[in-house]
């Protein structure tokens, strides 16, 4: 019941319709679905489904959802104000930037931004500007909780840096600010042409200010990376982002696939689109869905994408997959391995693993990789049998 209802909620406005979705829930059922809906950030869509007469909430259940939604939206408005302050200081410092995910997806991919909650601010800066950007943000009280693995790592090899802004509003939690250099860590941090992400630009208006965001193609690709390789188990709202981006008339999906292929990442698009359609079940099936279902990745693509699966030794698997594509020849690969295996003492102290654990984990993984008979993941991307 819970899974079916969650799927129906995630498909509100685009689904084929699920007759069970409109049935009233008893308190226990409601409690179960609410926990999952909150975790998948679907409460806004659930309320919208109820307004459309498709959810059957009791007045008390509706009031509970609205209370939850109000708190989430208050946080979103605080984050929007923080975003505007960030835009102001970065603009004043002459640092080019693009805002990502969160409010950008809410405003560009949904008919009402309240349907798409978020919990931090994400922005993209050029690798060469990252140190200065972090310095400028210090003026807003934004700090870096974990130091860089080794000097220069973020600028050359990293996905980005997670920062913390002072708590605002009623809550005491500090707000996350993710400063990205690119869309992913590991091998894709090397293969994505990060500077080219600034080639196209668009804007969204937040509080009367136009702020810069990615163009449609890169926004779609980022949504795919976010759903397919960022989290071990993507939230349904991340997968709904992918669906909405696909259904957006502005998307040139063939151009997007070409761009992803140039990063050895067409597999990321294929997995994100295929999994999103399976999870949510939209009524429409545009051509990219068929492409995604039948896509056959190369061994190199599969090796890259599989390094992000699961949580066991993920950082080591990503690092190992990245080594062949680290730029800068032997010296670049040496610098990368030195940073991931032998971080500075300060960096190790602020992370969970000790230096010895990092090295041991990397060596164990390497031994497993070269041992014959290792796990074969080819079935994960095999096309379905002919009907």
């Amino acid at each position, binding site marked *: 019941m819970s899974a079916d209802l969650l799927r129906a909620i995630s498909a509100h406005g685009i689904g084929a319709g699920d007759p069970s979705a409109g049935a009233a829930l008893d308190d226990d059922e409601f409690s179960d679905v609410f926990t999952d809906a909150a975790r998948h950030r679907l409460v806004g869509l659930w*309320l919208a489904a109820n*307004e459309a007469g498709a959810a059957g909430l009791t007045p008390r259940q509706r009031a509970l959802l*609205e209370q939850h*939604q*109000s708190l989430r*939206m*208050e946080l*979103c*408005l*605080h984050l*929007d*104000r923080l975003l505007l302050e960030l835009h102001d200081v970065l603009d004043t410092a002459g640092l080019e930037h693009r805002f990502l995910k969160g409010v950008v997806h809410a405003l560009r991919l949904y008919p*009402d*931004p*309240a349907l798409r909650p978020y919990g931090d601010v994400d922005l993209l800066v050029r690798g060469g500007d990252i140190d200065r950007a972090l310095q400028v943000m210090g003026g807003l009280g934004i700090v870096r909780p974990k130091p860089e693995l080794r000097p220069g790592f973020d600028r050359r090899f990293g996905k980005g840096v997670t920062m913390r802004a002072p708590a605002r*509003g*009623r809550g005491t939690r500090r707000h996350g600010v993710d400063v990205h250099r690119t869309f992913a860590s590991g091998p894709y941090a090397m293969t994505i042409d990060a500077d080219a992400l600034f080639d196209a630009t668009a804007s969204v208006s*937040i*509080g*009367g200010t136009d702020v810069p965001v990615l163009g449609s193609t890169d926004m779609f690709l980022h949504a795919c990376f976010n759903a397919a390789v960022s989290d071990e188990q993507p939230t349904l709202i991340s997968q709904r982002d992918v669906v909405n981006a696909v259904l957006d008339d502005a998307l040139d999906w063939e151009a997007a696939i070409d761009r992803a292929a140039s990063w050895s990442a067409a597999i990321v698009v294929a997995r994100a689109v295929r999994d999103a359609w399976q999870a949510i079940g939209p009524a429409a099936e545009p051509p990219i869905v068929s492409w995604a279902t039948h896509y056959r990745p190369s061994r190199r693509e599969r090796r890259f994408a599989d390094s992000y699966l699961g949580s066991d030794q993920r950082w080591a698997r990503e690092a190992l997959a990245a080594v062949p594509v680290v730029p800068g020849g032997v010296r670049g690969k040496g610098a990368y391995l030195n940073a991931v295996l032998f971080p500075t003492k300060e960096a190790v102290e602020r992370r969970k693993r000790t230096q010895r654990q990092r090295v041991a984990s990397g060596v164990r993984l390497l031994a497993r990789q070269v041992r014959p008979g290792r796990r074969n993941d080819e079935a994960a991307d095999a096309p379905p049998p002919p009907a």
Partner: protein
Amino acid sequence: MTTLRRNPRTLWRRISDDQVIVFPPGLSEPTTLSGAAARLWLDLDDDARLDPAGSDRAADASLDLTIAALVLSGALEELG
């Protein structure tokens, strides 16, 4: 009779037809417009639309004057 429009610098989200959260410049916390005030806000539509019956609507909505001055643009003196 006066005209009203949304202050474009006010951040906001709709919770329902009867509840809108607004976060105008000048406030350190978002605040909630309820009932008629929420419906007034939603009826104003986009930033540029003028509502010729604005003052009556705002007065009917019992919109707090301090909040009204922050979230709305337009001549509000008639509200007093």
